[in-house]
């Protein structure tokens, strides 16, 4: 990998100052910055090939369609899907999971079936499943046993049998704990029990190599904006035969085969699930983001971010009164922590004054934090452009804030 110092220069937003300090952007789990190459590609699409897709017979529209569909091929390739038809463009992970929950509840899942989640799911992989309660689909949960994020995956079998579980949906990387769940192992176990699987890859896509073939999942979702792409684009991957068995989600133009006033018939996937004009510019930006990340090298991104996180965790650990969540080793690029006597909001507000951009809150993980007796944590999350010296600044600033509040 080119060193982070050099990669940074690809990201225009990183050269700014904040409160008189160089901006240290440490909220990458919320969204990442965008490299110039992505912004250029999107812009050039709008300047040269802008037309609606799948419709026109004129040149411009042929180019737009080709650009859009080539993005789909690029994504398929990126996650090792068997074909581009397995990739549905969505606004992001949240829409992807909503799409799956809404359509599966009318096909793959029956009244009385269960959906198994973990206690560390992001609200996006919890609330859409809760909504199926009115259809008689019940949730059960794999407990998170400690603040390190330990889950006893052996319990899948027992819970699955007891609750007639049909689908297991779990996060690949926890956005608050930085815990990496062993996706391939979990999916193998689930498959042997006849369960369908959904992997929420919002925090792993673009942060490590990702192959649906190696993981062996049935469905997978991620957001572009957390991996260098613009906002408003993401995908749902689904195995072709499963996607084909799902009814439509949103309806309208582009997804229909034939429309009569009283009824309509649908196209095959993926277009069945893409009603209306899609986010064409977003899809093209996602392709450019994948190109960028593959040039950098995903193995290197993973190594860089997790080593920064480990460095941050050990640096923060030296501060009196600090409590760090998440695994002691094999941590993704995320460190959540609380400081005794200083509310997380006050803490990150002080860090902001030092040019350090961190998030404080429940990280859309209310049930998990409640279990730990917390309402909010501060969270530092790293990406390919972050530096060890930013971690040093973080540790120093947290210590300074502690002293300030200690009076």
């Amino acid at each position, binding site marked *: 990998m080119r060193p982070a110092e050099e990669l940074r220069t690809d990201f225009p937003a990183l050269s700014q100052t904040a409160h008189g300090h160089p901006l240290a952007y440490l909220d990458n789990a919320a969204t990442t910055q965008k490299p110039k190459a992505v912004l250029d590609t999107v812009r050039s699409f709008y300047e040269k090939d802008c037309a609606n897709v*799948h419709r026109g*017979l004129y040149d411009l529209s*042929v180019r737009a369609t080709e650009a859009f569909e080539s993005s789909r091929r690029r994504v398929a390739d990126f996650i090792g899907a068997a074909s581009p038809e397995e990739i549905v463009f969505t606004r992001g992970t949240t829409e992807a999971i909503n799409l799956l929950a809404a359509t599966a509840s009318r096909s793959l899942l029956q009244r009385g079936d269960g959906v198994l989640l973990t206690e560390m799911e992001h609200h996006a992989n919890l609330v859409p499943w809760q909504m199926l309660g009115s259809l008689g689909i019940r949730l059960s949960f794999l407990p998170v046993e400690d603040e390190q994020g330990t889950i006893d995956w052996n319990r899948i079998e027992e819970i699955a049998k007891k609750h007639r579980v049909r689908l297991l949906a779990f996060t690949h990387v926890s956005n608050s704990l930085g815990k990496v769940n062993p996706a391939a192992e979990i999916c193998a176990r689930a498959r042997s029990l006849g369960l369908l699987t959904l992997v929420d890859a919002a925090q792993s896509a673009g942060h490590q190599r990702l192959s649906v073939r190696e993981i062996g999942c049935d469905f997978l979702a991620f957001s572009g904006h957390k991996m260098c792409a613009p906002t408003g684009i993401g995908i749902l991957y689904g195995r072709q035969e499963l996607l084909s068995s799902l009814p439509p989600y949103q309806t309208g133009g582009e997804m*229909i*085969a*034939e429309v009569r006033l009283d009824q309509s018939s649908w*196209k095959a996937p993926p277009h069945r699930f893409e009603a209306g004009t899609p986010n064409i510019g977003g899809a093209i930006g996602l392709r450019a983001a994948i190109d960028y990340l593959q040039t950098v090298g995903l193995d290197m991104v993973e190594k860089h971010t997790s080593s920064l996180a480990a460095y941050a965790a050990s640096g923060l650990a030296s501060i009196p009164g600090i409590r760090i969540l998440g695994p002691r080793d094999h941590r993704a690029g995320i460190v959540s922590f609380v400081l005794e006597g200083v509310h997380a909001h006050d803490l990150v507000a002080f860090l902001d004054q030092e040019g350090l951009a961190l998030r404080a809150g429940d990280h859309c993980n209310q049930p998990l934090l409640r279990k730990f007796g917390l309402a909010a944590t501060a969270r530092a999350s790293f990406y390919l452009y972050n530096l060890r010296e930013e971690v040093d600044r973080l540790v120093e600033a947290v210590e300074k804030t502690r002293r300030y509040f200690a009076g």
Partner: protein
Amino acid sequence: MELDELYREAILDHARHPRNFGDLEGCDRSAAAKNVSCGDAVRLSLRISRENRIEEIRFCGSGCAISTASASLLTLAVRGKSVEEALQLVESVQRLLTGASAPQDKLSGDLAALAGVRRFPQRVSCAMLSWHALEDALRTGETNSA
């Protein structure tokens, strides 16, 4: 190649005067195909001999000049061919139009007129419509009254 050159060859003639147009009474097999993105539709009906040869074939439907001419050319090209030969021809046409085969590969006779379509990717689905229907009719191997 300009578009009017493409049309000038056999295409325009076949579009204006489609051969073997209509329904084949008492056919053995039939299949329909529809281009959902433009609404073009074609239906083929065939009679197959005991020796598995296409004895008779007709098409009907509505579509643009390319899809109509392609269907008309198809009926001429496959009449008398064995089912296997016809399926091979479907593949050759597909490979040629989608650019999977080398440009110097040629289709024989009037069919050669279709080659120009490869220069106009947005029209390939028009040209392929009837060929997809043919494949369908031959592969399903049973009377299909779709």
